[in-house]
């Protein structure tokens, strides 16, 4: 009814992911031309490794934004679980593998996520406000009750897991090597699970539905409160997994160095075409947006731009990127109005 089936190209150009992908491609090519190092095996592996923690955070953040909220507490949540888990295991002089730390972290993360979910889902408070508050609470517990100091030693099991490599990539020119970490698998597994959840379960469609219209979702028969609470529990678990991976890979538990990551993560998610108002966005776009930010943060040096300028570039990218998608929305609305007018004429 809208004049034949659109061609593949047309379908592509209508999607936000396509533009993020183009920008990404241009940026990579630019870096490649300038340095000749971008597509070297070790650089690609470095980028993949750098993607693990932000990627996990972005998945959690994406879920919340799609449901119509904004979560700013995940770095604090991840820091608290990571720190609490590490400290507990160190105190117990734990010598085993990485499974127990992960399980403990997931459990703490689930409880903290439920805390967010309770206030947001059950008491219907705005997600932004609740997570601003819980972010303070989590930081407070970490600094007050746990008396957080940097732990320079972590249990051996975590260290082994965090530093073991799937394979090692070598740059044929410079001879530099990079490790592809095992933890990358954890990231891919979470990504696949969440993809399945969002696409093929009613729970996942419920998250989209709630983000589109909470009232409609309720009337359609979704259990809005339960969906939200479960989702925040999941988000808490994903964030704590990111936290424990981070500590394992850095081989130390630093209580504050994840704090402040939330803005770049949310920016990456929105850059990837996720509507900040909720209900719209794809994991593909979310990952592309995050990747873009990760590359800008990590590869500016290859372009010959001093690292001190990094945040300026990230900022400009965010403004331009979100600006383009905002502009697209305006254009789409305009063409919609023209279409309605034409229909009226035809009528």
């Amino acid at each position, binding site marked *: *009814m*809208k004049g034949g089936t659109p061609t593949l190209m047309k379908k592509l150009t209508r999607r936000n992911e396509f533009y993020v992908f183009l920008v990404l491609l241009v940026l990579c090519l630019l870096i490649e031309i300038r340095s000749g190092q971008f597509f070297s095996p070790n650089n690609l592996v470095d980028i993949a490794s750098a993607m693990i923690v932000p990627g996990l955070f972005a998945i959690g953040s994406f879920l919340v934004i799609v449901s119509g909220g904004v979560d700013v507490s995940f770095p604090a949540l991840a820091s608290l679980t990571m720190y609490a888990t590490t400290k507990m295991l160190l105190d117990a002089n734990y010598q085993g593998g990485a499974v127990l730390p992960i399980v403990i972290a997931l459990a703490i993360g689930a409880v903290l996520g439920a805390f967010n979910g309770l206030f947001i889902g059950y008491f219907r408070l705005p997600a932004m406000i609740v997570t601003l508050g819980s972010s303070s609470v989590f930081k407070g517990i970490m600094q007050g009750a746990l008396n957080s100091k940097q732990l320079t030693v972590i249990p051996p099991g975590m260290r082994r897991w965090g530093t073991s490599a799937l394979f090692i990539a070598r740059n044929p020119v410079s001879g530099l090597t990079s490790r592809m970490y095992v933890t990358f698998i954890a990231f891919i597994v979470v990504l696949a699970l969440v993809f399945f959840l969002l*696409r*093929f*379960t*009613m*729970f*996942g*469609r419920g998250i*989209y*539905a709630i*983000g*589109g*219209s909470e*009232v*409609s*979702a309720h*009337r*359609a*028969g*979704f259990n809005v409160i339960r969906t939200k609470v479960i989702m925040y529990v999941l988000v808490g678990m994903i964030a704590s997994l990111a936290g424990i991976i981070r500590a394992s890979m850095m081989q130390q538990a630093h209580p504050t160095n994840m704090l402040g990551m939330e803005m770049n993560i949310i920016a990456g998610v929105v850059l990837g075409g996720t*509507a900040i108002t*909720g*209900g*719209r966005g794809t994991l593909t776009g979310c990952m592309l947006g995050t990747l873009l930010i990760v590359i800008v943060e990590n590869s500016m040096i290859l372009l010959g731009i001093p690292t001190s300028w990094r945040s300026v570039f990230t900022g400009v990218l965010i403004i331009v990127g979100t600006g383009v998608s905002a502009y697209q929305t305006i254009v*789409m609305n305009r063409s*919609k109005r023209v279409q*309605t*007018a034409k*229909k*009226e*004429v035809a*009528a």
Partner: protein
Amino acid sequence: MAETLLRAQSIHKSFVGVHALKDVSFSIRRGEIHCLAGENGSGKSTLIKIISGVYTPDAGHIEFDGHRYSRITPIEAINLGIQVIYQDFSIFPNLTVMENLALNTELAANRKLVNWKRIRRVAEEALAKINVRIDLDAYVGSLSVAEKQIIAISRALMFNTKLIIMDEPTTALTKKEVRNLFAIILQLKERGIATLFVSHKLNEVFEISENFTILRSGELVATGSTKDLDDKKFSYYMTGRTFESRRFVPKTVSKDPIFEADRVGIPGSFEDVSFALHGGEIIGITGLLDSGRTELALSMFGMKPIREGEFRVDGTKVELTSPRAAINHGIGYVPEDRLSEGLFLPRSIGDNIVITELDSLTKKFGIVDAERRDEEIRTWVGNLAIATPDPDNACQTLSGGNQQRVVLAKWLANSPRILILNGPTVGVDIGSKHDIHTILQELANEGMGIIIITDDLPEVVENCSKILVMKNGRIVAKLDAEEADEQKILSYML
């Protein structure tokens, strides 16, 4: 006589001491089209919510399909075959047509996993039931209001539906879309599905319904066959007041025109539009949604400056390039969508009234003269009979009719000589509509020149001394009030 499907028996409902419904009884037969009418606050929505199980009645009961229920839950209502189509359609703008159609049934079947093939099949079936075609992969947010409504209706039919309740379904539809909707309702009737149609537009009540029920302040005032109903009775039942039909006849018309349009146009919107407005006249401009009437209205208020021709005020050419310029030339504009363009809903009624005349209420150093401000607000609340206990209340606490009065007050406070109103009574109930018409006619008699842009034909015929009909961006007919009737205007419009 077909058998009774729904009977509401002596329903009572009160909220914190306020009687929302008092002893209301009515019934609907299988496959009947029944209209429920009443002004804002008459208890229509409370009654719907009781039938659909959202509220429990304090006393009385519902009989449905031969069974008696003193209380039902929303889920039970759905399982009985009662479906409500709310004004917002309860759709998901962010999801595709396919998902919107299928989600409810998938949920009702308590499925945990999504099978996209099945969803597509369910969606196709849903649309096939009422013989419409909509792109299943389109996002619902990109559809027109009428298409969204069709989705809500076909989704409702996916259940074993016996009664569909539509809450003011025609509010945002064009005339053609209303006709399509009625065709669908008649289709449903043939399949034995009854429709309870909530409306306060009398022409719709007459056109589609077989029986009607009218509520006023929570009480049943009349129920029966639409055949026995006429305009006068309808208005009386609705408001408890009698209105004489009073065609507007201008009393004093100024010798020279105060506002003229001379071959004005904006390429692509309208062209070659000329007319002259004298003080004391009310001109009606009507046409379909795409006829260019709205663009013309906006251009007269400087929001869409014209590219061709000229506007004249008192015979002198004026450049209306911004609303500010139009206001300076004594032009006031009451917009089409009072909610988004005309009012600051969260602000107080008083603030909304005085906003256009703040300049004249300002003392030295830009400080607003509070006493004069309050006096001004009191005057207008009184003059236009805005029903509020306190003008400091937020505008959103008012009913549609009263909000429209605030918009009027806002412009009148600025004492314009030329007043342009775009759809002045859209979504306003009969009583307020009548009052707004009376106010406009009085203003004209005091010498103001008024232009009403509307597709409400009875409104045009009743209030305008001159009628311009637009079609495809041009004026296709200029009629005098005496020679105009609805049929004639309609024939030029289409």
